[in-house]
């Protein structure tokens, strides 16, 4: 109940009272719980400079206050140098300046996959933040005959454990209520090997001494006169906290209150020894004498056959094994598989010999990843996806652009002059250029959401990985690349399912080579005009060759990128094969909605602005009025009917106008550059226009050749192009010019919408600009070779 005197209860404050980070393994059902907590109050953005999506939301707690919820990217571990997981780690540790340090962490744990999920929990315990465990997928665990006891887990960890069923929204209120009781977990005494514990004491003591020395030096000497020997004074960024400050905040190293071991220096020593290089740890580890302290400790341990990183992980898992043993009881049911039970891992080998009953997932997998059926079904699903976004979306797209055009014409019918043209051909066409992609994007994300939520996406990657691995891509690159044959925009958006940043970037960079549907009108026009005499088979062959050229270019560039630009220690290909689930309609609908909305608001703005600019370039400067009259008079001469005369005059004026415009002048200015490829200025204008969308090339040609708006019938344009001659009588268009131009269209990056989406997906202009440079560079070189070598051969 709210009143005017009590504005606090209902009003949504600018900032939540507390910040909650939602962490968890991939496939743990984290997203459904995020949706359950925040409802529709969500914001999707990118973390600056990285291709990682940043989702935040708002959630009202039982006491009426609001909490900001950060959906941390799904991660298996907090110690990782892969950029995607780095973001998760940085958010949780409060190292990111763009994200508020979380006050507490809700960790989503998949009860049916307890051991591996508890590994992340064990790392979060070390973080020392107040924590709540959301025990998800209890229903799945139960179906497998596993009884997971939240009470025991709560007692063992010392933090609230709330059983939830994410996809049924069960337990959300209890989870919100538990936030108030969030507690710092008890620090377990990891069963580390004794020699390692001794080394930790030793290194920790060393660090403590070094730090106190450095502190003393800092107190006596002015900042610039600190002794160079001090490992703290070499830090050249005075704005960052001093290491003396970095060591004490156990809040992000080992927790404030719960560390039962010697002290925080020991905890720091452990982070350093196991190779944790997060934030300031990197600086600390690299400075002398810390570096040599670490090296000698590592050497001593190595001689005993102990590798600190491995010993740490094994200690965590040993603790997990014990914990799982106490938390899970196996309740055998007919459907249950004996090996699925966590307990069996500890059972003697003979016990595991029993023939396991198979889970539903295994039975389904027996068909869906079958050597023959699996590939057939995969082909069928992909064909359906392709047909849907290639053909099924087309009528909706034409309908949308037609109605936007009609609406624009209707609304501007009373206007005249530049304002009318701006509204009609600039603004409405710009909106149309954005909206036209919506059916494709919505349909693709409908497919993706169903495939991903059901668990099939991992299988698709499993099936296709062999092929794509050959050129350094990932199994998950398949669907984005396939979608790019319809349009690179949804294709590039689909790369979000690829977790690894480098694999994702490589896929984004090569996706536009796939011949999209916007290239088809250009292919059809050029092939139809210049190779019609060769017969239908030859025309089809040329078309096929163009598609093949795109694929070859994509494979080759991907191969090169993964060996040069995107090289580096490739993280292991580890693909979890989640259990099959029935996709939830509400989740699917939400995915479609958020992705479509994100496209309209983020990429749409850029596309809209660019189309206005392109419109202005084709519109201004206007032909002087006297020239218009002159052209009209010439064009109307000798025409039989008045109607024909007016049409001919209109066409002549638009042709003259387009030559007079900035785009036309650019075409002329470009001529020396594109001459070696066999193009003249008219094609240059066409190329400028094609930046709005490749198919615009056809209509630009129509305007320039004064055949008016090219609709379905391109006969007039074809003959006009064939008859076009240079001043010396040489034909402007030859089959060779057409081939050179076709090659250009296959390889060049000339689609502002793709540029806009790449900017959005990669979080900056760096990659889209790189893309324009390398793709157009490649297109130029290959077209140049085609035309020059072709001319030589034809002359011989």
């Amino acid at each position, binding site marked *: 109940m709210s009143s005017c005197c009590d504005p606090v209860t209902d009003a949504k404050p600018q900032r939540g009272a507390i910040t909650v980070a939602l962490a968890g393994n991939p496939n743990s059902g984290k997203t459904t719980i995020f949706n359950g907590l925040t409802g529709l109050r969500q914001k999707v953005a990118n973390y600056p400079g990285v291709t990682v999506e940043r989702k935040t939301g708002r959630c009202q707690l039982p006491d009426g206050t609001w909490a900001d919820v950060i959906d941390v990217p799904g991660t298996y571990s907090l110690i990782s140098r892969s950029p995607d997981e780095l973001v998760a780690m940085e958010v949780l540790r409060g190292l990111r300046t763009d994200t508020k340090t979380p006050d507490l962490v809700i960790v989503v744990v998949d009860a049916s996959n307890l051991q591996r999920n508890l590994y992340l929990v064990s790392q979060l315990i070390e973080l020392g933040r107040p924590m709540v465990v959301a025990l998800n997928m209890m229903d799945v665990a139960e179906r497998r005959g596993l009884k997971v006891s939240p009470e025991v887990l709560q007692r063992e960890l010392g933090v609230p454990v709330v059983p939830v069923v994410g996809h049924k929204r069960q337990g959300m209120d209890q989870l919100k209520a538990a936030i108030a009781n969030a507690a710092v977990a008890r620090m377990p005494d990891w069963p580390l090997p004794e020699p390692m514990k001794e080394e930790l004491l030793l290194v920790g003591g060393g660090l403590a001494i070094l730090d106190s020395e450095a502190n003393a030096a800092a107190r006596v000497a002015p900042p610039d006169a600190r002794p160079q020997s001090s490992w703290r004074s070499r830090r050249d960024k005075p704005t960052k906290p001093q290491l003396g400050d970095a060591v004490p905040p156990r809040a992000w190293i080992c927790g404030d209150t719960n560390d039962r071991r010697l002290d925080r220096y020991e905890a720091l020593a452990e982070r350093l020894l196991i190779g944790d290089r997060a934030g300031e740890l990197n600086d600390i580890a690299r400075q002398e004498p810390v570096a040599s302290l670490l090296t000698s400790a590592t050497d001593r341990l190595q001689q005993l056959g102990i590798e600190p990183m491995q010993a740490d*992980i094994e200690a965590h898992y040993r603790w997990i094994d014990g914990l799982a043993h106490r938390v899970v009881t196996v309740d055998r049911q007919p459907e249950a598989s004996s090996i699925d039970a966590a307990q069996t891992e500890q059972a003697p080998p003979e016990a595991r010999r029993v023939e396991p009953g198979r889970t539903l997932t295994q039975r389904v997998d027996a068909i869906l990843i079958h050597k023959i059926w699996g590939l057939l079904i995969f082909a069928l699903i992909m064909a359906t996806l392709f047909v849907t976004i290639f053909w099924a979306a087309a009528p909706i797209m034409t309908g949308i652009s037609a109605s936007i055009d009609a609406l624009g014409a209707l609304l501007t019918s009373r206007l005249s002059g530049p304002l009318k043209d701006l509204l009609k051909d600039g603004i409405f066409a710009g909106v149309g250029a954005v909206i036209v992609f919506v059916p494709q994007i919505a349909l693709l994300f409908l497919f993706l959401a169903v495939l991903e939520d059901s668990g099939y996406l991992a299988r698709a990657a499993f099936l296709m990985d062999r092929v794509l691995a050959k050129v350094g891509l990932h199994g998950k690159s398949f669907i984005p690349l396939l979608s790019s044959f319809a349009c690179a925009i949804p294709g590039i958006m689909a790369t979000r399912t690829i977790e690894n940043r480098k694999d994702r970037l490589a896929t984004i960079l090569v996706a536009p080579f796939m011949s999209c549907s916007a290239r088809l009108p250009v292919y059809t026009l050029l092939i139809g005009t210049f190779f019609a005499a060769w017969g239908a088979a030859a025309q089809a062959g040329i078309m096929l060759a163009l598609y093949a050229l795109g694929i070859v270019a994509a494979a080759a560039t991907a191969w090169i990128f993964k060996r040069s630009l995107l090289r580096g220690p490739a993280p292991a290909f580890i693909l979890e094969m989640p259990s099959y689930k029935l996709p939830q309609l509400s989740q699917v609908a939400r995915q479609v909605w958020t992705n479509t909305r994100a496209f309209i608001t983020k990429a749409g703005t850029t596309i809209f602005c660019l189309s206005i600019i392109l419109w202005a370039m084709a519109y201004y400067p206007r032909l002087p009025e006297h020239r218009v009259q002159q052209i009209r008079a010439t064009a109307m001469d000798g025409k039989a009917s008045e109607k024909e005369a007016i049409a001919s005059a209109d066409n002549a004026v638009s042709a003259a106008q387009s030559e007079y415009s900035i785009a036309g002048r650019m075409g002329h200015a470009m001529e020396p550059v594109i001459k070696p490829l066999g193009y003249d200025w008219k094609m240059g204008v066409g190329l400028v226009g094609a930046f709005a969308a490749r198919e615009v090339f056809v209509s630009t040609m129509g305007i320039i050749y004064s055949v008016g708006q090219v609709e379905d019938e391109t006969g007039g344009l074809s003959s006009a192009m064939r008859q076009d001659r240079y001043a010396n009588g040489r034909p402007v268009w030859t089959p060779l010019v057409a081939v050179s131009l076709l090659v250009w269209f296959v390889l060049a990056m000339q689609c502002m919408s793709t540029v806009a989406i790449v900017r959005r997906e990669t979080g900056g202009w760096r990659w889209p600009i790189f893309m324009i440079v390398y793709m157009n560079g490649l297109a130029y070189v290959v077209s140049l070779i085609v035309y020059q070598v072709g001319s030589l051969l034809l002359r011989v």
Partner: protein
Amino acid sequence: MQKACSFVACNHCGTPDTCALNKLGIGCRGTVFAVGGDPEVRRRLLEMGFCNGASVEVIRRAPLGDPIEFRLRGYHLSLRDEQARHVQIVPA
């Protein structure tokens, strides 16, 4: 139904009692003995649960031969041949 393990035919291992995970036949089981490879890959494999003698079962190979699907600690995951060969297994 259980196929015989290809362990007998495995000549690639240094120690006769262990076998690289990628050499293990489909349907075979074993326990993790050691994990090698470059540190980053090794860390990943350890963190995913390839440690402390966990039991691993080979489920299948992809139709095109690679990657390989395994069951480990109650869940399924797949690795490329390239990664699996860094995991040494004591066949059971």
